[in-house]
């Protein structure tokens, strides 16, 4: 007994390898060992191990490292004439696992998915070349002159607190915990003291290019952009360009994540597009010519047939997000050329084409949405000039606030959007004024409609009249929410935001409102539109729609747009759209029509709750929200 306890103690003091282990090893090579022999062997092995460990530390020291590597150990073995242990020379730490039963320890040896490896698009480039870079670290023994190359560790020249903040924030945002991420993003939105960190955050965001395989990370980075953009205390300056390029990357690039059809990169692109417009409208003035640059690059992508459809999709939603003028200017003229390509894709019913075709439908849907709004907005804008500026101003203020509130989120609350509805026309004006279009001659609306109709047929018209429930959502009280949220921008920031008016959401929100006054139902709608300076046309679309279709039957089968002369005093424009709807249930042609009667903006009208958010098209991964019932079906027969 004494012997064993003594031996135990002895083993505990030194041993890394127990007698049992020695026995196991001996057994595995077919040798039966007695207890005493095993103990002796174990002791010896332990000593050898200790010796090797001690001499291996010397190799570590001379390699000027802090970490003992397998290689160091092997060198120690080599110099004591022991064969090296091969196969463990990896630079990274090898995860050491234990199997509970039997107290077995082993190194995890994962299966390598060769298929994935072979098909991977992000082929590792290999190690970058070793190089020497010099920088003047301290001049006359004082101070850092410049950050160390492109290495982001320059952060360390910041104060400790900032550094800690930076680390925490990036960790939180890119980390696992969604709650933490939210908190971090919120803080990023409102923290007034992070100006010094801006370059580093921008640098982090520019990392989108390296995580193009990871939707989640891309999303988080975009959220980071959003927070930075929304932070009223940050002056983005020339970093806008960098941010825009990161966002554009997400919109336009055929991301690695897109390869897997299960990945919902569409949503990402939508979101990025929203973000782009947000940046542009709020900070576009910081970089001259930004708008044109963006348009150019979008156009370039769109006109490049080699690009995958998801890139085209990005370009379309990007244009859409930048406002109907952008659509009119870039997408519309380009449509005939593009259409041929798209048509070819959509007409190919082969199985192998299924995925591409699905993508094509996405693009189709996106274009549809874009041109629809183009039509509506154009119609509105034509009616607008006579409207006058007084309401425009107030409208724009409201719009600004509304915009702030409804900043591009993937699922922003539906309620505050409508708040900005009234200001739409003036926004457009402001936006139009901001972007000169001298060299470009707009196509007249009727011609445009004709052309578009030739492409989209009835599916275009459907958009205008049959969207169920556009106005049917119960109104929320968004203003309260909005007020609560818009504290951050504050009243001081309003004046300058009015100039770079956020058209986007305002446009979006207004759209459902104006489709509800059919010409054929003149009694309620026209009177209202002519007199409605203060009334809320909340229920009109519903009511009108109910009575509309039957009435529409009397219209011409191939309706053309008609301009009615503006009524005296109150500028109004009504636009009639008609069409045939092809459907299973409707045998033959079944004409219908839609009339636009843009109402003048009503400054005092409380915000409305049209839960409609436009550029979110073709969601796959996310549950479809309220507007699911609206006619966003992407598979309408052409």
């Amino acid at each position, binding site marked *: 007994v004494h012997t064993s306890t003594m031996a135990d103690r002895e083993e505990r003091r030194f041993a890394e390898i127990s007698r049992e282990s020695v026995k196991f090893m001996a057994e595995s090579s077919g040798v039966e060992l007695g207890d005493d022999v095993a103990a002796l062997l174990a002791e010896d092995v332990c000593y050898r191990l200790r010796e090797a460990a001690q001499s291996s530390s010397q190799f570590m020291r001379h390699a000027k490292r802090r970490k003992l590597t397998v290689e160091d150990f092997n060198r120690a073995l080599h110099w004591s004439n022991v064969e090296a242990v091969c196969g463990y020379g990896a630079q990274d730490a090898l995860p050491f696992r234990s199997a509970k039963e039997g107290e077995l320890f082993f190194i995890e040896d994962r299966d390598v998915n060769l298929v994935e490896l072979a098909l991977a698009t992000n082929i590792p480039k290999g190690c970058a070349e070793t190089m020497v870079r010099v920088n003047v670290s301290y001049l006359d*023994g004082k101070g850092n002159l410049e950050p160390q190359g492109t290495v982001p560790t320059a952060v360390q020249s910041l104060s400790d607190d900032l550094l800690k903040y930076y680390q925490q924030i990036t960790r939180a945002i890119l980390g696992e915990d969604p709650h933490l991420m939210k908190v971090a993003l919120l803080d990023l939105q409102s923290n007034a003291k992070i100006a010094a960190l801006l370059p580093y955050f921008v640098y982090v965001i520019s990392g989108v290019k390296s995580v193009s395989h990871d939707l989640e990370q891309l999303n988080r980075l975009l959220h980071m952009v959003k927070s930075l953009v929304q932070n009223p205390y940050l002056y983005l300056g020339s970093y806008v360009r960098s941010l825009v390029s990161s966002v554009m990357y997400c919109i336009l690039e055929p991301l690695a994540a897109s390869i897997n059809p299960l990945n919902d990169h569409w949503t990402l692109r939508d979101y990025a597009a929203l973000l782009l417009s947000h940046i542009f409208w709020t900070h576009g003035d910081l970089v001259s010519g930004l708008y044109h640059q963006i348009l150019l690059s979008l156009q370039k992508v769109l006109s490049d047939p080699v690009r995958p459809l998801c890139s085209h999709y990005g370009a379309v939603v990007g244009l859409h997000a930048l406002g109907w003028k952008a659509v009119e200017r870039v997408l519309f003229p380009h449509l005939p050329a593009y259409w041929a390509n798209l048509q070819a894709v959509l007409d190919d019913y082969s199985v192998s084409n299924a995925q591409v075709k699905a993508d094509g439908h996405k693009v189709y849907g996106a274009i549809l949405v874009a041109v629809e709004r183009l039509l509506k907005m154009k119609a509105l804008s034509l009616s607008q000039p006579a409207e006058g500026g007084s309401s425009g101003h107030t409208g724009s203020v409201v719009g600004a606030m509304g915009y702030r509130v409804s900043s591009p989120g993937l699922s922003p609350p539906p309620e505050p959007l409508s708040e900005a509805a009234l200001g739409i026309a003036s926004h457009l004006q402001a936006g139009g004024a901001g972007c000169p279009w001298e060299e470009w001659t707009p196509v007249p609306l009727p011609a445009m409609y004709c052309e578009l109709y030739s492409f989209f047929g009835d599916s275009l018209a459907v958009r205008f009249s049959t969207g169920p429930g556009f106005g049917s959502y119960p109104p929320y009280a968004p203003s309260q929410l909005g007020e609560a949220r818009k504290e951050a921008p504050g009243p001081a920031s309003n004046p300058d935001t009015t100039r770079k008016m956020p058209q986007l959401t305002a446009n979006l929100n207004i759209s459902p409102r104006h489709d509800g006054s059919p010409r054929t139902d003149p009694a309620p709608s026209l009177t209202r539109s002519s007199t409605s300076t203060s009334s809320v046309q909340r229920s009109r679309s519903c009511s009108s729609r109910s009575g509309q279709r039957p009435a529409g039957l009397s219209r011409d089968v191939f309706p053309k747009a008609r301009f009615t002369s503006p009524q005296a005093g109150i500028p109004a424009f009504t636009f009639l759209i008609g069409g045939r709807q092809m459907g299973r249930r409707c045998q033959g042609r079944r004409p219908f029509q839609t009339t636009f009667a843009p109402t003048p903006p009503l400054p005092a009208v409380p915000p409305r709750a049209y839960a409609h958010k436009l550029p979110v098209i073709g969601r796959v991964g996310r549950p479809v929200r309220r507007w699911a019932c609206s006619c966003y079906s992407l598979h309408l027969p052409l």
Partner: protein
Amino acid sequence: MAYVRTTCAKCNVFDKKCTNNQQASLHCRRRRRAFCCALDDASSVRTNRVAGSCAVRVLFFFNLAHAHFILKMAAVQGGLVDANEEKDIKSEPANDTWANNNANDGRLPSASPGASAAAGGNKTAAVAAAAAPEDQQTLLAVLQFLRKNKLTESVEILRREAGLPEDSLESKGADSFCGDQECYYGDDLRILSSLSKREHMRGNETLLDFRTSKFVLRISRDSYQLLKRHLQERQNNQIWNIIQEHLYIDIFDGIPRSKGQIDAMSGSLAGEAKREANKAKVYYGLLKEPEIELPLDDEDEEAENEEGKPKKKKPKKDSMGSKSKKQDPNAPAQTRIPLPELKDSDKLDKIMYMKEATKKIRLGPDNLPSICFYSFLNAYQGLTAVDFTDDSSLIAGGFADSTVRVWSVTPKKLRKVKSAADLNLIDKESDDVLERIMDEKTASESKILHGHSGPVYGISFSPDRNYLLSSSEDGTIRLWSLLTFTCLVGYKGHNYPVWDTQFSPHGYYFISGGHDRVARLWATDHYQPLRMFSGHLADITCTRFHPNSNYVATGSSDRTIRLWDVLNGNCVRIFTGHKGPIHTLAFSPNGKFLASGATDGRVLLWDIGHGLMIGELKGHTDTVYSLRFSRDGEILASGSMDNTVRLWDATKAFDDLETDDFTAATGHIHLQDNSQELLLGTYMTKSTPVIHLHFTRRNLLLAAGAYNP
């Protein structure tokens, strides 16, 4: 005590018979209570096999380690007397001192009587077992005493011998194993504590060191006499014998040293250096600069350099008149070591140096150097060594993947010499023939030199920038041509990893040191070493040439620095005081001083002429891998694994000392703790350990390291 010896002899015989009886040996371990008991057991060796083998083991230890233990104990007691006497040397006689000491453990005296009783040979194992509790207590007391007195090895050995669990002491509230004073023996201790078998002891180098070399201890004469008297009074003859056998007691006259002084000098594997080891005359002065008449024969612009020259030479040559023809009294004869003649290109380089030196910034506490950091990016393979050329035009890195890479720091790219065929076509009479021989097509910013088969641990440019030396784990040193970027020679001699190599400041010679504990002096045109410097007890980790090329300094993992005379291969200085392996050395430009950095994070300053430690610079928190004096020797820069560069006021460190009482007679000086005053600045890198430092000719500080993502 004759008995002990006879028993030893007996057991040595017996030892051979039963070493293989492991079972018995195992069994007996628990019975070992103390060596006194073991001795007791030994007496009954022939009747009791178990106890006998126990005795074998114990006596075995007694022969090897206990000797050490006792001698160390004695040594420390000597030191202790030193320390105690510092308080009351005059007032109290020796007995009192000893009483104080013994009061610490109380039981120590009882151990010796126990031994004597055992010597009587009457006790049986059973008796010993019965007495176990008491013995155990005695042991604990002894252990505590030992520990208190820095005898960690002995503690370990004794404890193991006695089979005491580690925590038995810890529970007593004693300081943890590596206590405040003893941390620097931690490494040895770890090695010793890992030994558990006789076979292991045979092969263990550290133990071999202990056995083959005497542990050197400096004691004042008074203390020594006290010790002697005490041992005589106690009749501790065996201890005395062991002291005689394994301990070298270096007695000095004068007052005993303070604890601080002792601590400052201790830490090496073999105790302190003997005083006579540092007595030899060292010609630390600089060689006379070669006559630079050269600028005179060249005309106009060189003439202005002539004016510039004295300015720069004054600071460099320090006290000695630089222009005077007479030899610096401390300098070696110009031809003491045959040095290569200056070539024209060398002279040109000297002129360049003069020119640059006129633009040199005079550094000082108020005028700190600017620091440029050369970061090696993407050095995934592991950067192990860096060197700059003296004119800072090239930088070379040695890597763990066996490659050496050379970069041009200037816009001038690296070019190879043309092939032989092409060279034939060149007009050899043309003035720019040196330019013409270069092949423009090969111009690039960096070149990779392949040849080694192990990590490159040391690297050094030749002063004329034509050659590069690299030493590697594969046991070779390679000489590379920087004209052809090929390997010219592989010097094989160290058959073990070569940790460091360096060219002589005058070129031609180079020094290397490695795992084989031998430093070798080579000449580039000899494939065998010219000198071998052996004496270190562990790996030689770094090597440095003295500015006058007559001496080389080597730092070692035995925690000593040795200075060797190139002429005769003698060791002329041994510096002890570091508590960890020494990884870098730097001579001051005037050749008088040496700075050393070690894993303990401290930088020590040494006066070569007097062979004394003259300064301790504390501040770094990790291994100091690089040291460099500014061109005028006013600033000492140190770079460390802790990602900092620190600048120290070298002038002040040296001056302060010279005003101090230089107790050259005893060889001990009182070190003031003035690191904070001397520290001029701490400069952080981002995340880059500083592994090399270099002052340009204009006193700009260059630092280099691999960025650690």
